[in-house]
């Protein structure tokens, strides 16, 4: 999908994908390392397609997938 696509539609699709992964990872109790790696990959794709620069927030002790959903919510709220 190109970057010309509406940001909101794309951000919403990324958000639903991330939520689905959070749910599946919870059901299958995956290792935190896999959740971190998945969040990294998704975040890179999300930021590249939406040309988004993440705000510097306190992400210590937080699941990176949860933080990524918050970041997507920021884009949707803009």
């Amino acid at each position: 999908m190109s970057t010309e696509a509406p940001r909101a539609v794309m951000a919403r699709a990324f958000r639903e994908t991330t939520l689905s992964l959070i749910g599946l990872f919870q059901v299958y109790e995956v290792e935190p390392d896999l959740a971190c790696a998945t969040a990294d990959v998704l975040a890179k794709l999300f930021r590249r397609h939406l040309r988004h620069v993440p705000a510097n927030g306190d992400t210590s002790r937080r699941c990176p997938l949860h933080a990524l959903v918050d970041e997507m919510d920021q884009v949707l709220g803009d």
Partner: protein
Amino acid sequence: MKSTFRRLFAELRAEVRSPKHCAAFAEARERHNAFQDHGAVASVLGVLADGGPDRYAEKEALSRALIAEQQAHPSAFWAAVLLVAYFPMLSRLRHRIYGHALASDDLDQLVVTSFLGVVADYPLDAGLDRTAMRLRQRTERQVFRVVCAEQEELLLFRSGPPENLADSERARWPEFRHNGTPAPRNPIDTADAVALLVEHAGELLDGETFDLLTATLICGRRISSYLDGALPDLDARERRRVYQRIKRRHSRALARMRPALEHLRCPCGEPAGLCVCRDADQPEEVAER
């Protein structure tokens, strides 16, 4: 004595004495000083069955060691040992329950699951003494809370106006999976359940709350189990504080979700809903597909 309850414990007694659990007990003996003088779990159960007051300290230490073991390494074996050890208390409790709101087998299960729930949540780090008494009190409270609620609902069903019944059903929606019910392991069912939650409630929830609701609604995990997985390093005081915060967040999220899921309830008027009833006025009648 209820024969099913007695039969259940007879089976549990046989199970805990099985040689296949010797290794588990030997490993636990390395971890707990209270087990040092005992060569097998039968010896532990023998001490706990001693009704005299002279061995209070020893029995207290053994109870705490058994609870710690079940909390740290939850297994059917340690659950069975605790149930057998506390059988006299559980049996007395079971026979104090009157009423027709729950079937006899359900009452047996209620007593057992309530006790194991209390064991799972028991705050060993809080420095409490008289563990056996506290287990009994907490289990009684848990059991009678459920029995009273069922009794009230039965009364409402029999004598109350239909509007009250509808309100009572709405308050429980969406329902939790029963404790211990495993999450769907079939990948297709799992994907369907997660997709349903994303589709209908995803927009209302942040990532952390979605994770929490997946754990309770889809996986059937207790909030305390969710907390252990999400934040395993908390000390006891912080854990209690975070637990209360998560519990409140969980309740608020459920309340927020209800309107969004309302059209999926049975009976529903929308063809896209989950309800498979042919007639919206007769929810018991399930259409063949």
